[in-house]
């Protein structure tokens, strides 16, 4: 089976794919084209890094410790069933 050709993509197309790429939802040659573009385009690379860092700040925000009172409430609830 022949390997699909990796085409050069333009910035506009790279930006269209950016979030799908950052969400790890790009597959195959579309992913490879994106990676290749980011290696050669400083502007799109900077944009990707910015969006990646902003996304990671959001992910960190989700790290919330459940209050002990909630844990106790859940345990009591499950015991009652």
């Amino acid at each position, binding site marked *: 089976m022949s390997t699909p050709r990796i085409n050069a993509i333009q910035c506009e197309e790279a930006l269209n794919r950016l*979030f799908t790429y950052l*969400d790890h939802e790009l597959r195959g040659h579309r992913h490879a084209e994106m990676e290749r573009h980011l290696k050669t385009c400083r502007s799109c690379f900077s944009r990707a890094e910015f969006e990646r860092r*902003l996304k990671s*700040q*959001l992910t960190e*925000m*989700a790290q919330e410790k*459940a209050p002990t009172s*909630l844990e106790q409430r859940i345990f009591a609830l*499950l015991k009652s069933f």
Partner: protein
Amino acid sequence: MNPDSENRDSFTEALTSVLDGLYGAALRLAKNRSDAEDLVAETAAKAWAKRASLKDRQCFRAWIFRILTNTFLSEFRKRALVPLYEPSDPEHEGDEQPFSIFDRLHQPFLLWWSHPEQDFLDQVMREQLERAIDALPECFRVAVILSDLEGFNYNEISTMLKIPVGTVRSRLARGRGLLQKALWGLVEEAGRGASAHRPADSAASGTIIPLTRRNTRKTP
């Protein structure tokens, strides 16, 4: 140990392992701690009642987040405190160009900044992120929470919300654009507030140009 007790122990263990994540998501969905705790407790009760529908224990996290999301959406509709926002044309809800902080930071008259993205991200506060998420219309907020905060993939979100993957994609695009717009406004507002306390600072003009610069200055 009897089977019921064993079943309950294993369910409790699985629930405990995702409890922090459930609470974090519930907090952003419900926007306050008291409702978030109620939402998680109700989710736990529903999940226990529906435990037979969980075919694969490996899928426990996605399964219980689906229950959490549905509980929130159904309760939200029931309470009708705020009308549920639904895009008028869901298939084309992502057509317009979303707001981009990066583009704003790279407007030509801002290029004298050496590291605008770095400076911007360094000054973003957790509270501002929370407020920006809380300001999103429900359908976009739920998609952003499930993807960016909880890390679910498009297929999982599509199953949880019972919408096509294309709609997940467009809701995320639109939601992220709105989130960035709100965040930009909040950071700009905070910068303006900070400079208002320094009358000699030329940044008091209120324009967005000195947004980062004035925050990097040392207070005398």
